[in-house]
């Protein structure tokens, strides 16, 4: 989608308020910000005009006051499933877990049967999870709560299919029609559409003409690469409840009369529960449960009756890789990024989950636990087999048509110049030589020629020695610029070293020549760099400068910013005020008088990443929702025309049956829809950084 519309504008831009009493005050600030963003680009003019003509669409106050998360999910459900599902989901999102009868009470328009019917389809699509509660009396009550995983799959659906298409391209485009059913994207599309499918179901729905072996092979591929997993109860159980269940069970198993203190008991139960929990979660990807060897053909096949579902975790890993590749490209350029891409591709499947399941258990509340999780995951990244690689591994998987020659230069320009000078010592150099004068005007006569020659010879010898030492150093690194192999190991090693030496921890060298990707640390820099650039692109480069200045100095006063960021105090104040508006910077007041008078107090600034990221995530989330909303309104406004264009007898013969103005309108709708999709996918690519990755 991105390819088709390269000239589409930036996805996150300033919005100017076109109405309301604040306009005059805001306009000046916003114009100044816009100038910072766009320089002398035409965009300022455009938006300036927009202000006058009031042509910029401003969402209503009602929309703006909505919680971004529920706004996004409601828009998604509304556009995919319509009003009934929305009503149920809205109550679940607003009120948390509810039983079916409670849901009916909240939505008096529905009968209990209807509610249950809707719940069944929502459960199938993994939009709702359920949990049984027996604590109140003997009767079992089933509570339902919304499941974000299903919602994420909905949100990502287009990107998922795109990704699957990229990873598992159709074998041959000629037989497209017959092979369509065997293409990975079609299979995944079907699975997403119904929630879960077994191989047998899929085959029966395809009919007898379908290329059965191709379909099975694609299924096997998808399962082996982790995109499909068998569905089980875990997918419908909230992880937090599962954790509590296991923990409680373990805690109760410890005998009451044991001499241990309660704290010790709890810790022991926690330790045991962790093991069980991870074991349960890890079991999901056990291939032996789903794949077997067909006794007839002795080919790998999928057990036909196991229902399979899409594995969001796996998809998020590939999203993470994409983000990292973009990041590497921006820091180290295309060639290193290709090497990095290869490294990521090798390790992607075994890489640690984007969201650690333990994080959903609520254990992170404890600071010690949070720290130990962090340390554990750092250790795991290094120790887990399959996550480390060397240049040799990369060379096996590098794209065939890559040419790394010329991507690395082994001699610095300044050294080149020095070499040239030495190789042809110009006769001028002697003439230019400065005459040395003593203070009282006595000129020191030049040394006799045979002596200068001798000195020069010594110099040259020294230089040669130095150069030899340098050469030795180069030999150690084994780098040869004249290597003729376009995919030579030395080049790969060079790029890997660059990645490891970069200021961002793209790679870590665990043993000489063996690298791994330090996800835990890398994600932090990925997030902060993305955040800073988002700020720079919207609030201007000076905002980023102040932001990074505060981050580097932890807690600063205006004076410190003034002296370290070398900005005028007036500019600092105006920039900081906008930074505070977007929760980038926090103010700390240091009162200097007993009555805490604001006039005499000193104000310090600091950055709390968690808060600013959360705000940014919500902001982006709201924008995705708003885009979806705009798209839906557009469709609603043109409902008659769209209905007409979609009629069976009109389809394919639009040019004959529709008026030219209708055709134009239709074109405009399509363009705007496409526009909205492009922007949604762009904003998603920013939002996911703060949401999962």
């Amino acid at each position, binding site marked *: 989608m*991105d*390819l088709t519309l*390269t000239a589409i*504008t*930036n996805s996150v831009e300033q*919005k100017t*308020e076109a109405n309301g009493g604040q306009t005059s005050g805001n306009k000046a600030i*916003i114009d100044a910000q816009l100038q910072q963003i*766009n320089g002398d*680009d035409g*965009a300022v003019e*455009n*938006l300036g*005009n927009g202000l006058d*003509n009031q042509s910029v669409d401003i*969402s209503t106050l009602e929309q703006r006051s909505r919680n971004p998360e529920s706004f996004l999910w409601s828009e998604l459900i509304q556009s995919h499933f319509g009003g009934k599902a929305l009503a149920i989901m809205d109550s679940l999102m607003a009120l948390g877990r509810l039983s079916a009868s409670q849901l009916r009470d909240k939505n008096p328009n529905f009968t209990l049967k209807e509610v249950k019917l809707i719940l069944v389809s929502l459960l199938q699509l993994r939009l709702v999870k359920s949990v049984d509660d027996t604590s109140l009396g003997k009767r079992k009550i089933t509570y339902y709560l919304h499941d974000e995983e299903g919602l994420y799959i909905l949100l990502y659906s287009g990107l998922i299919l795109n990704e699957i298409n*990229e990873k598992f391209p159709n074998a041959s485009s000629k037989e497209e029609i017959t092979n369509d059913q065997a293409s990975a994207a079609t299979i995944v599309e079907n699975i997403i559409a119904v929630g879960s499918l077994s191989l047998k179901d899929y085959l029966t729905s395809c009919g007898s003409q379908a290329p059965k072996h191709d379909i099975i092979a694609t299924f096997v591929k998808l399962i082996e690469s982790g995109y499909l997993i068998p569905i089980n109860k875990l997918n419908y159980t909230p992880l937090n409840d599962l954790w509590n269940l296991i923990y409680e069970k373990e805690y109760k198993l410890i005998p009451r009369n044991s001499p241990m203190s309660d704290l010790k008991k709890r810790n022991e139960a926690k330790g045991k529960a962790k093991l069980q929990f991870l074991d349960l979660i890890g079991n999901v990807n056990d291939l032996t449960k789903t794949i077997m060897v067909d006794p007839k053909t002795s080919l790998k096949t999928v057990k036909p009756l196991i229902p399979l579902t899409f594995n969001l975790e796996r998809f998020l890993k590939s999203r993470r890789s*994409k983000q990292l590749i973009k*990041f590497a*490209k921006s*820091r180290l*350029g*295309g*060639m290193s*990024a*290709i090497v990095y*891409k290869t490294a990521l591709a090798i390790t992607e499947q075994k890489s640690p989950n984007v969201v650690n399941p333990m994080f959903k258990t609520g254990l992170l509340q404890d600071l010690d636990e949070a720290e130990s999780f962090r340390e554990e995951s750092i250790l795991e990244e290094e120790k887990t087999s399959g996550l480390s690689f060397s240049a040799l591994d990369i060379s096996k998987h590098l*794209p065939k048509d*890559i*040419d790394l020659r*010329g*991507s*690395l*230069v*082994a001699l*610095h*320009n300044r050294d080149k110049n020095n070499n040239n000078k030495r190789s042809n010592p110009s006769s001028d150099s002697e003439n230019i030589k400065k005459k040395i004068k003593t203070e009282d005007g006595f000129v020191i006569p030049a040394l006799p020629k045979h002596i200068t020659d001798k000195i020069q010879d010594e110099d040259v010898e020294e230089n040669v020695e130095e150069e030899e030492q340098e050469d030795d150093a180069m030999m150690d690194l084994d*780098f040869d610029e004249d290597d003729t192999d376009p995919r030579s190991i030395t080049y790969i090693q060079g790029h890997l*070293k*660059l990645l490891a*030496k970069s*200021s961002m921890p793209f790679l870590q060298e665990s043993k000489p020549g063996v690298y791994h990707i330090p996800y835990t640390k890398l994600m932090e820099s990925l997030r902060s760099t993305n955040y800073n*650039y*988002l700020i*720079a*692109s919207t609030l201007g480069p000076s905002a*980023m*400068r102040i932001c990074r*200045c505060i981050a580097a100095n932890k807690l600063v006063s205006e004076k410190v910013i003034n002296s370290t*960021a*070398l*900005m*005028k105090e007036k500019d600092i104040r105006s920039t900081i005020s906008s930074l505070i508006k*977007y929760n980038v910077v926090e103010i700390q007041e240091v009162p200097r008088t007993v009555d805490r008078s604001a006039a005499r107090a000193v104000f310090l600034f600091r950055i709390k990443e968690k808060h600013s990221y959360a705000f940014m995530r*919500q*902001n982006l989330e709201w*924008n995705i929702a*708003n885009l979806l909303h705009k798209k839906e309104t557009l469709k609603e406004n043109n409902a008659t025309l769209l209905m007409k264009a979609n009629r069976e007898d009109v389809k394919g013969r639009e040019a004959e049956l529709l008026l030219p103005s209708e055709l134009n309108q239709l074109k405009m709708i399509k363009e*705007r829809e496409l526009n909205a999709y492009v*922007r949604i996918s762009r904003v998603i690519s920013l939002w996911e950084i703060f949401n999962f990755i």
Partner: protein
Amino acid sequence: MSDNIELSDVARELHSHMIKSGASGSRLFTQKELQDKLPGNNPTLADLMLIVQELLDKNLIKLVKQNNELKFQAVDFQEAAKKSTMSNEESLVYSYIEASGREGIWSKTIKARTNLHQHVVLKCLKSLESQRYVKSVKSVKYPTRKIYMLYHLQPSVEVTGGPWFTEGELDVEFINSLLTIVWRFVAQNSFPNGFQTTTSNGEGNKNSQYAPNVRSYSTAQEILDFISAAGVANVELSTANIRSLCTVLVYDDRLEEVEFDCYRATLTSLAQLTGPGENMYGSNKLLDEMDEFSIFDYHSTMGPTETDKEAVYFDEWAL
């Protein structure tokens, strides 16, 4: 000038002795030392007092109290002549300004110390200024205060705020041009092709880098040498100044600090130079992510048009 001032021989001798023995007359003498220097056998304190009084009257000697001990300092004839032309009030004001050295003194402080009426102080300052004995300078710390110091003195760094201030104001233009120069110098050393990354023969498309063993960074000293050699700054800069410039560039993400005092230009900063549509990172069909939207390329995107109904705004929600 010395001829204009009439002095007894003994006093003149003592004065010239004091000027000669102390480097530029700044040495302090104790009473005992002066007594020893007097000619004749066993000169008494009374003799000394007479001579010192004579010198004091002619403004040729200054009394300084150090560690609760009275000390004497010679004043050269020029300085003395200057003082002799001043009125009493003027010389009082002058002495306070002189004592403040390179830090300068606030006009209100002078008033408080001298116990003179404000009008008198202002009159004195005006006359001293017109005779070019003192000057007023702008302080960075207190921009509203009038600070006075001796005419021939250079204000201290505290007062001027260092090289980044011109007449008490942060010279943003000067800083920005220096930032650009520093960045260009470092960038030239960080990438083999310097700024010609996209050359016409197409080879530049393959954006090349220095191998990891090449020293591609620049040290603060190198940058300083370059700037001094180019002669772009009319003020004296130190490595500390360069370091603070580099820190600003690091905040801008245009440089990154490799090690202490060693800086490299970032690739993103280089990409910001190129206009919209040009791909700085080298285009390659092997990398689909090349064409995908990335916030790091924000500078090469265009703003939304007026008719664009789907534009997303950063501040729409937060408005």
